[in-house]
């Protein structure tokens, strides 16, 4: 086998030293506190769709207060029946995107059941199990439980619990489940909550953060080491978080796969009969080498190279701009047709699900690239910089949306909506939707003058599911763009790198982010950050009017107070002066410094600042004609704010610009004609 050194000599790339060895164990001091570590043995029976497992949990009480009650997630009980909080919210919100094909009925439901929880002395604390519902009054929800120990875990002490559980795998839903011979295991074992310790995320006393599974929320967990043995039928291909450390055949026709990874917050895996595995290696000068594995359905094998290329582009950009990817392996799963929307596009540490298409667009399928980049980048923004996805979803999704746009720009990629045209019709229908849209522009369109909810709030407390999605993704990315515009691109790049370096393997909050941004930029960004993230205002500054009149010197006909004495009536004189008036409006509630630039016919420019307290301003000029006529008025002349709802109305010219209006009217007319012709063909 070629050693990394020999490889580097052959290909001329000098990788950075690895942070983990070939067995997934950290080299040198641990990268995280390893608060919750698991030693898991699980067996999967696909025929019964059942998992049975044992987990030795080693948990450290990071607080200075003894803890006798431990909080746990039992995520799969969200799919147990229609009474779970997840199901109720999903039904109420009509969010079917992740509900899987055909919707899920009782035969598709899944559950998890804790069988025992023994202390090292053999005491079973399972009888102390108590179901909790900290987020609502739904007593039927079974996604959070507590166990009470006979003796508390002392401050900074450790407890070991041997958990035994059984679970039924749901039909593919909400980032987990089974479809045919494909099974994805996410949030699949009894998982301890996070005991937040002051000053972590602003808590004042040690507090358990362990939320129910909501239709619009993701997850939150402590770092730890995972050593997992997975026993599955021999025909099943297995991919998982971490590094494969062993594979042993069993007499009953099953195979046990062993994986290990230190310093991660979760462990997910897939067991998939008939899947295809494609491997590659990421090598780049000065960055750690990363082994890559793509697992895709055989009929979508053509997707694998693009998935791997997108992953490499992300590792390259992120390694240079945020943090080098420290883990030695990354697994990317492209689900089979029927499971992409329900289980694709999900982030787990060193293991992500992307999409796989039977006939990807070549040479670049933007849909595959976008989801892969986004999910791989999550390994930084939530995987390592482990924010609370329940309570501050913007810190992972918003930051990651910003990050996805950064990688898109770095590889020079833009959206072509033709990728959504089904194969077989692309040659004919592709040109109808051919576009070239920057990734960061995609999200801007959902700006509004005033939002219902703030960005920084628990994911399940938004007014609608669509508002939650718009807010924590695009709106939050726009907010970051506003901060970037405020401090400049280079400074903001330093902000993000510092934020990643400082908060990797910890749990930052919104305040932590704003503090880093203020510290690095040398400016107090908290007021603007709070307005954007904790306010509901939108921004749409506009030039509403621009008009000019040629007038006599001193004004038109009328009474004029020429010398401060009695006004005298004066008729019109020669029209030698240009009198211009510009009306500027703040159509949104967000007040950011507003500068107006007037460009005169003689090429001179004038800048005018609108006071922050004003919602509108009328600017008048009078200069010798014709050079003094204003030809162009612009707000935000240096850079359009990323959250501006309508950048087109940021400028207004005195001369007419007929092309856009004529073009759009013509397009409207053509579309109306086609509609009328189509309806006419039915008459």
């Amino acid at each position, binding site marked *: 086998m070629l050693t990394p050194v020999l490889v580097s000599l052959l290909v001329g790339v000098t990788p950075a030293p690895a942070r983990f060895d070939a067995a997934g164990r950290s080299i040198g001091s641990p990268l995280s506190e390893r608060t919750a570590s698991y030693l898991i043995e699980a067996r999967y029976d696909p025929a019964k769709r059942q998992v049975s497992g044992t987990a030795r949990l080693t948990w450290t009480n990071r607080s200075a207060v003894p803890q006798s009650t431990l909080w746990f997630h039992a995520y799969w009980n969200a799919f147990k029946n229609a009474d779970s909080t997840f199901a109720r919210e999903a039904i109420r919100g009509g969010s079917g995107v992740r509900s899987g094909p055909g919707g899920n009925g009782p035969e598709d439901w899944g559950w998890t059941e804790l069988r025992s929880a023994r202390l090292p002395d053999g005491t079973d604390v399972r009888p102390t199990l108590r179901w909790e519902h900290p987020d609502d009054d739904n007593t039927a929800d079974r996604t959070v439980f507590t166990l009470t120990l006979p003796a508390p875990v002392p401050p900074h002490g450790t407890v070991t619990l041997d958990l035994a559980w059984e679970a039924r795998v749901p039909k593919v839903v909400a980032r987990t489940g089974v479809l045919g011979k494909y099974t994805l295991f996410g949030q699949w074992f009894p998982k301890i909550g996070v005991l937040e310790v002051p000053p972590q995320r602003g808590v004042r006393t040690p507090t358990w953060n362990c939320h129910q599974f909501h239709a619009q929320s993701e997850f939150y967990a402590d770092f730890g080491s995972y050593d997992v043995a997975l026993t599955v039928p021999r025909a099943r291909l297995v991919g998982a978080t971490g590094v494969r450390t062993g594979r042993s055949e069993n007499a009953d026709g099953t195979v046990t796969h062993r994986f290990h990874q230190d310093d991660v917050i979760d462990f997910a895996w897939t067991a998939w009969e008939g899947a295809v595995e494609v491997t590659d290696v990421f090598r780049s000068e000065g960055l750690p080498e990363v082994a890559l594995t793509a697992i895709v359905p055989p009929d979508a094998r053509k997707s694998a190279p693009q998935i791997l290329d997108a992953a490499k582009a992300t590792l390259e950009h992120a390694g240079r701009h945020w943090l080098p990817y420290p883990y030695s392996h990354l697994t990317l799963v492209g689900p089979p047709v*029927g499971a992409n*929307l329900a289980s694709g596009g999900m982030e787990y540490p060193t293991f992500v699900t992307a999409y796989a298409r039977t006939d990807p667009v070549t040479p670049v399928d933007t849909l595959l690239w976008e989801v892969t980049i986004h999910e791989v980048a999550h390994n930084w923004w939530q995987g390592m910089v482990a924010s609370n996805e329940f309570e501050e979803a913007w810190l992972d999704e918003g930051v990651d949306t910003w990050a996805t746009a950064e990688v898109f720009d770095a590889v020079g990629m833009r959206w072509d909506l033709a990728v959504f045209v089904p194969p077989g019709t692309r040659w*004919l229908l592709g040109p109808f*939707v051919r576009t070239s849209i920057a990734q960061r522009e995609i999200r801007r369109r959902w700006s509004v003058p005033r939002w219902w909810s703030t960005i920084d709030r628990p994911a399940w407390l938004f007014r609608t599911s669509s508002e939650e999605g718009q807010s924590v993704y695009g709106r939050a990315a726009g907010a970051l763009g506003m901060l970037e515009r405020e401090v400049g691109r280079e400074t903001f790049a330093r902000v993000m790198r510092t934020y990643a370096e400082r908060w990797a393997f910890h749990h930052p909050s919104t305040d932590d982010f704003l503090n880093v941004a203020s510290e690095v930029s040398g400016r107090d960004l908290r007021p603007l950050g709070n307005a954007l993230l904790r306010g509901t205002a939108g921004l749409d500054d506009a030039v509403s009017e621009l008009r000019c009149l040629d007038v006599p010197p001193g004004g038109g006909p009328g009474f004029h107070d020429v010398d401060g004495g009695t006004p005298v009536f004066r008729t019109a004189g020669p029209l030698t002066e240009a009198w211009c008036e510009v009306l500027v409006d703040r159509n949104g509630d967000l007040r950011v410094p507003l500068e107006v630039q007037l460009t005169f016919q003689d090429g001179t420019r004038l800048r005018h600042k609108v006071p922050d307290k004003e919602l509108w301003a009328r600017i008048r000029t009078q200069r010798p004609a014709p050079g003094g006529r204003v030809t162009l008025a612009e707000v935000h002349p240096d850079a359009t704010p990323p959250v501006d*709802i309508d950048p*087109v109305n940021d400028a207004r010219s005195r001369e007419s*610009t007929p092309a*856009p209006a004529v073009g759009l009217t013509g*397009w409207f007319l053509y579309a109306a004609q086609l509609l009328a012709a189509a309806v006419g063909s039915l008459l």
Partner: protein
Amino acid sequence: MRRLVDALGVGVREWRTVLVLLWANWLVAGLMVAPSIPRLVAAFGHAPRAVGRPLLSFEQLFGLGPIFARGGTPSVGAPLLLLVVLQTFLVGGVVWRACASGPFRLGAFMGQSGRLVGRNARLYLWLLLLLLVAALVPVLLAIPMRALGLQTVFTSSTDRWGFGRPFTAASVLHLCVVALAVGLWRLSLEVGRVLLFRDDLQATRRAAWRAVRLVLRAPGAVALYTVLGALATLAVLLLARVHAVLPEGSVGLALLALGVGQVVVWTRLAFQVAGTRFAAALVESAEAGLPPVMHRAEAPDAAPSV
């Protein structure tokens, strides 16, 4: 095939008829768009940042929400209602042109339209029943297909549309059945209109029934008529594709695009006339007991004088 070629030839030669249909199309489309024009002019008439951007840019096409927030959205319902009235009126004239061989006269066209409008409307309502029956065929076919695990384009999941292959042998076959069902209904409608005109029938229910029987006895004609419809769709899509790839950015280019758009709509309307001619030929051949190939010049001008 000769009947198809003959029908297409009529679609091309009857340009004055197509022009009348295009006028109606313009009227309806204009009414739809009219409320939006002031808004578009106000928003973009002095907007230098909109210049040079493609129409499909987010700032323009997808960014119209705020512009129409205070009104001015295109009107659709009332103009489409007008379209129903206009189309029901004008089909009488179209049938006249498809059956008669004399020169086009606008007065005569309108006269025939007016003479037949009531009966054509009643005929349409009767044949809506056939549409319901025809729609049931693909729906009922989809049930066993689904049970057998075969996809149709209507039952394919979003996931299959986005990531797999929605067009399989089974789904294309099902699509063909849908097209044939629509073709059967539409040809029956056209034949019924021709019967009303040629035989000056007053009882529209009887005309509808005769039309259905005639069409059911000519499955080959249904297939050919469906092919004609498919050709129309393909021609429109290909021409619309030309429209879609035109450059943008100036008034001249916008007018060029509008001009190409008229070719697209013209083509669709010409196929409409061709379809009516196809139905007329079917009726003529059936009534004359001739092989189903008929040249318009040989056909008697059965139109009552107007």
